[in-house]
């Protein structure tokens, strides 16, 4: 996968989506998926599987989340797993992944649970800072999410549990992305045999490759 940081691609992606939507209306989604064998186009129907810009700014409502919610989720992804010497969760479009994954692989109740969590974050942000979460400064955002993560101050244990669910989605999305699995962690597609003991030091990355079982 290329780490394509060309700003123009956002536009391209939009046109791909429109192209796909038009095609879907013509021939139905199943047939359209079959027709669109080009990877870069076929994946655009769902969400931007490939990170198309450094910011991956959402431009549409998602399948589960509104545009505003997606922007909030993008910020949360950036705070939970930030960019370091590797890209972070927001940069690899984990928010887009979560929207898509929740829609396709989770129950309605779980989708609602995550929407309610975003609403909660917004409400507490407004109460505490009289400002939308996305408008807070980085420290305020980090502190608010830390309170939520620990179930303290404005948050209770149930809300803390909900946030752990979201964190798991963020982690799953990030560590199964190419960057997460193979740049942040180490990915061995074909290990070539099993060694029971190799040297390891604390700064070494763990294995991002897990066979079938993620």
């Amino acid at each position, binding site marked *: 996968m290329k780490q394509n940081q060309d700003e123009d691609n956002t536009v391209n992606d939009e046109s791909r989506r429109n192209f796909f939507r038009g095609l879907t209306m013509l021939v139905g989604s199943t047939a359209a998926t079959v027709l669109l064998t080009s990877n870069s186009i076929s994946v655009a129907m769902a969400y931007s599987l490939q990170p198309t810009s450094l910011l991956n700014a959402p431009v549409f409502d998602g399948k589960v989340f509104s545009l505003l919610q997606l922007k909030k989720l993008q910020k949360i992804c950036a705070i939970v797993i930030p960019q370091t010497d590797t890209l972070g969760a927001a940069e690899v479009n984990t928010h887009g992944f979560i929207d898509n994954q929740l829609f396709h692989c989770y129950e309605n109740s779980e989708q609602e649970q995550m929407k309610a969590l975003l609403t909660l974050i917004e409400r507490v942000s407004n109460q505490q800072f009289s400002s939308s979460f996305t408008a807070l400064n980085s420290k305020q955002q980090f502190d608010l999410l830390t309170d939520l993560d620990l179930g303290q101050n404005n948050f209770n244990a149930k809300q803390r549990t909900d946030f752990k669910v979201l964190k798991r989605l963020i982690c799953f999305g990030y560590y199964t992305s190419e960057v997460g*699995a193979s740049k942040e962690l180490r990915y061995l597609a074909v290990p070539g045999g099993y060694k029971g003991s190799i040297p390891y030091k604390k700064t070494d990355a763990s294995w991002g490759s897990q066979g079938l079982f993620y």
Partner: protein
Amino acid sequence: MTENIYINKSEEVYDAIVIGSGISGGWAAKEFCERGLKTLMIERGRVVEHRKDYTGENKTPWEQPFRTKVDNLLVEQQYSIQKQCYAFTDATKHFFGNDRDLPYTTAKNTNFTWIRANQLGGKSLLWHRQSYRLGEFDFQANKSDGYGNDWPIRYKDIDKWYSHVETHAGISGALDNLENLPNGEFLPPFEMNSPEKSIKKKLAELYPQRPLVMGRTAHLTKPTEMHLSQGRVQCQTRNECQAGCSYGAYFSTQSSTLPAAAETNNLHIAPNSVVHSLIYDEVSNRIKGVRVIDNDDLSEREYFAKVVFVCASTISTTQILMNSISKKFPNGIANSSGVLGHYLMDHNYNANASGDIEGYEDEYEKGRRPTGMMMPNFYYKPDSKRNFLRGYALAGGAYREGWQSTQHQDGLGVDYKKKLKEAGKWRFGLYAQGEMLPRFENLMSLHPTLKDKWGIPQVEFDCRFSENETDMMIDAAEQAEKMLKAIGLQNVTSSVSHGTPGLAIHEVGTARMGIDPKTSILNAYNQSHDIPNLFVTDGSSFCSSAVQNPSLTIMALTVRAVDYCVKEMNAKRL
């Protein structure tokens, strides 16, 4: 393999028909073909070509639309049962049956999970590849405590056939010299990691009667010339086996038995042929052939042979026998005893224990070992002091945690990301695999009215674990917890769960072997007591479940039965 190996219509009277292409069917076909018999393998599903049709193989998670998960809608519509299998993922889903087309029912207050793999290769593509011989005590178990009927064979009767299949299939394992888990013809075992070596040693000191051994598995750790000549190479430890393996590094029909059978030019395959019933001739008291319904267009056709081996997998085999009705056999063919469908068994996985291992922070594993450690059943000798009969094995291993464990921790940001990047603590876990008693009241039958789309009566299950199995799991959890604490693991926990039968996918019984034709379907050579040219060699023929994974025994029983059958044919007794 050539294209014309596949047939659709045929008037030919084959020497042998083999129904099914999975573990037992593949072996039956190979052994018949190699003995020069013209053989027709009938498979209800589509053709899966080695390599070419492993469409999920070697896909990174980010190349999969839902990162290894499967779309809800698809699951709901087609895989509502199959999804329960641990190996059901985006890369493997096409090797599982479509539940929409494969309905079955369960009796009130019971549950049975029936995992299906209806394609060429069957469940040999999806199996977990653990390969163990049954021991002498296993063959004597029913006789010892009176549950079930006595196996009509003993270990000495099957020993050389185990060797035969192990050599060809390629089984890795160590020569552990255990009384009731016999050695086999092994390729080298997989390595233990350092914590496992240490745990093995500590257990040997504290529990000398409970050895911990490397799991024996059908993987080529060191392929022989014969394996290489089949295009099979060394296991690369991807642990993506159920997606199909183009290296041919694990045993499957496609990698091992089918190429051997095809090489003889004696093999034909009728795919997409759902067996409806066996064609029985009352005058000669012989099976003449097989009536099939086309998988796709539902048309009917027939195939004919001198002998028929039913290797369709435990439940499907018995379904076929039950649906083969005649004046002489109104309750299912070869069922003069009336026990067909009874004594259904599975294994019970309802106990586990685990704990943290201190140390080894400067060590890690490399590669994804496709097997674990195994503590064979240490209760193989009957003992009236225990509050249950039979026993269990404990399987598991040591591993170092990764992000999937550390993600649950509190934290955000750079520190959290750093923590998730690092390998976590070492853990060691064991889960139980318990024997299930053969009980008359655990059964499958044909539903009186409901049929599937091929017009075949649906299967109804009435099967549950009894108190014996539950008590056994309580003991397994207690013993495992006790042992893990004794060897110094930290934070040891254990639990007993209440899963229902089926999901171990070790279903056996329902057309059992036995000495007495009044209480069994098959004789000591898996031959029908009632009809001489009918054989059943899959798991349905088992008299007890034992504790070991059944596949290796299914292979050995199959080749033994073919050997006997061909000798009988040559002697003109069939």
